[in-house]
C-alpha cells in the first residue's frame, strides 16, 4: 500500500509561550476528503499551515506527498493546491487576470475561462476582487487551488460565507477532485458542512486530536432519537418509558434508536395526544459526536 499523501506525527507548534498544536498525529489518504474539525483556535490552521510549508513546526515530523514541506515547499508547491482562510488576491486585480496568472504560474494546462466556468465565476470575470461577494471570493480562491491540478489540496474554511447553492457546488468540485485521486484536506469549524462532504474527520480541540476516523467510525455506536415538542404543551412525564430522556436545548434526546424505543416513545406521545415536531432517529450528527468528545475531555 502506498504511503498516505499526508503524514503528521507528533506535531507541536508553539508561539512563544502559547502551545497552538500539542502533539498531533494523523494521516490523510489520496482519493479521499479529510476534514480537520474543531472550533476556532483549536489548532487547525496552524497544523494546515505547517503542511503547506508556511509555518515551521516546533517539533514533530510532517510529510506531504513524501516531501518535508519546511525544506521542500517549492517542489511540493507544483503539486499542491492551497486555499487560504481569507485574502490571497490584490483587491484591484480582476478575476480573469487572477485566473490567468495562476494557470500560468502552475503551467498545468488549465484554461482560465474553463476554470472560472467550473467554479461558477465566468460571469464575473471582468470584476475586480474588491467587488466580489464573500462567496465569490471563496470560489475564486478555490479556482486558484484548482489551477495546480493538485495531488494534494489544503483548503481552509472553503465554504465560509458561501450561500446554500454555492456550498453544494463547492462540495461537488471537492468530490470530483478526490475522485481524480487528489488528497483533499479541508479545515472547517462547520461540522454539518464537513458531514456532507468528508470521508474522514480529524477532530481538534485545544491543540489536540480528540478523535480521528471515517465519519461512520466516529459516529459508530452513537445512535439516538432526537425530537422536539410544540412549545405550548406541558412536557409529559417520560418515566413510564423506562429509559432516560435527556434535554438538549429545546430538543429531547434518547441514546438509542432501536425500533422498540421508537415504538415506546411514539405510543406514549400518542396516548398523551402530543404531536412530536422534527422527530429523527439514527446516527448522531458530527455535532453530537463533537459535543460528547469535548464534554468527555473536560470531565
Amino acid at each position, binding site marked *: 500500500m502506498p504511503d498516505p499523501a499526508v503524514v503528521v506525527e507528533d506535531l507541536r507548534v508553539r508561539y512563544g509561550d502559547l502551545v497552538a498544536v500539542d502533539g498531533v498525529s494523523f494521516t490523510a489518504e489520496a482519493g479521499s476528503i479529510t476534514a480537520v474539525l474543531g472550533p476556532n483556535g483549536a489548532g487547525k490552521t496552524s497544523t494546515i499551515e505547517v503542511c503547506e*510549508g508556511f509555518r515551521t513546526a516546533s517539533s514533530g515530523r510532517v510529510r506531504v506527498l513524501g516531501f518535508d514541506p519546511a525544506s521542500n515547499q517549492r517542489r511540493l*508547491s507544483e503539486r499542491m493546491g*492551497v486555499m487560504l482562510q481569507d*485574502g490571497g488576491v490584490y483587491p*484591484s486585480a480582476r478575476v480573469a487576470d487572477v485566473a490567468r*496568472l495562476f494557470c*500560468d504560474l*502552475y*503551467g498545468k494546462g488549465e484554461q482560465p475561462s474553463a476554470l472560472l466556468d467550473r467554479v461558477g465565476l465566468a460571469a464575473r470575470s471582468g470584476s475586480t476582487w474588491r467587488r466580489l461577494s464573500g462567496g465569490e471570493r471563496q470560489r475564486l480562491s478555490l479556482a486558484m487551488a484548482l489551477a495546480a491540478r493538485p495531488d494534494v489540496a489544503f483548503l481552509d474554511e472553503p465554504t465560509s460565507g458561501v450561500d446554500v447553492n454555492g456550498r453544494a457546488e463547492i462540495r461537488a468540485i471537492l468530490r470530483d477532485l478526490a475522485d481524480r485521486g487528489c488528497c483533499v484536506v479541508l479545515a472547517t469549524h462547520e461540522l454539518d458542512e464537513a458531514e456532507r462532504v468528508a470521508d474522514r474527520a480529524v477532530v481538534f480541540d485545544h491543540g489536540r486530536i480528540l478523535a480521528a476516523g471515517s465519519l461512520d467510525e466516529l459516529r459508530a455506536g452513537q445512535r439516538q432519537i432526537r425530537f422536539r415538542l410544540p412549545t405550548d404543551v406541558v412536557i409529559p412525564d417520560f418515566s413510564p418509558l423506562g429509559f432516560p430522556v435527556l434535554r438538549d436545548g429545546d430538543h429531547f434526546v434518547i441514546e438509542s434508536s432501536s425500533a422498540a424505543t421508537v415504538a415506546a416513545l411514539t405510543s406514549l406521545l400518542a396516548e398523551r395526544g402530543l404531536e412530536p415536531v422534527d422527530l429523527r432517529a439514527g446516527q448522531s450528527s458530527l455535532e453530537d459526536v463533537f459535543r460528547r468528545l469535548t464534554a468527555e475531555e473536560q470531565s
Partner: protein
Amino acid sequence: MKPFLAQLRAELQLMLRNGEQLLLTLGIPTMLLVFFSLVDVLPKGSAEDPVDFLAPGILALAVMSTAMVSLGIGTGFERSYKVLKRLGATPLGRGRLLAAKIASVVAVEILQFAVLIPVAYALGWRPSGPNWAVAVGAIVVGTVAFGGLGLLIAGVLRAEINLGAQNGLYLVLLLLGGMVIPFSNLPLGLRAVARVLPSGALADVLRQALTGAADRPGLAWIVLAAWAVLTPLAASRLFRWE
C-alpha cells in the same frame, strides 16, 4: 520563465491600471517639471534656466517614486492581503517574485523617462556634454537603493502605516534638497543631512552626468552606493512575509 513572465504581467497590470500609482510615477514628476520650468520661482543653483537644474532632479524623483514609493506601497498591501503568502505556495518562488518586481520597476522607469526626457527637451533643456552611460549607471544604483528602502519599510510596518510612511518619506526626500531645491539654499545643518540622503545623492550624480554642474558628485556617489548596499541587505534580513 513562464511563471516569471506571468508574474511580471500581473505586476504591470496592477501598476498601470492603478490611478494613484500613475499619478505618483508620471503625473507628479511631469507636473513639477513643467510648472517650475515655466514659473521661475524655485532657486536653481548655478543654472541659468530652471529646467537645466530641474530635469536631472526630476529624473531622480521619478526613480524614487517608482522604486521606493510605488513598489513599497504595493508590496505592503500585498503583504497584508496575503498575496505574498499565496504566491509563496506556487512554483513561482521568492527569487522569481522579486525578479518580476524589479523588472516591472525597470519597465515603469523606462516609460517615465520616455515621457519626462522629451518633455524636458520641449521645455528647453539642453544637457551639456551628457554622459548617458554614467546616468544609466546612477539610475541602476539609485533604483537598488530606493527599492531596498521601499521594501524594507513595506516588510516591517503594517500596510496602513507603511502607506503613510512611504508618502511622508517621499515628501521629505523631495523637499530636503538636491531634487528640486539646490543644496546651497538649505540651512547648513539641513544641508549636511540632505547630502547623506539617497534622494540628493541620486539627483547630484545625475546632474553631474548630464550637465556637469553637480554639487559634490564624489561624495554623492559614495552616499548612493552605501544606500544601495545597506537597504537591500536590511530588507532581506528584516522583511516579514506575513
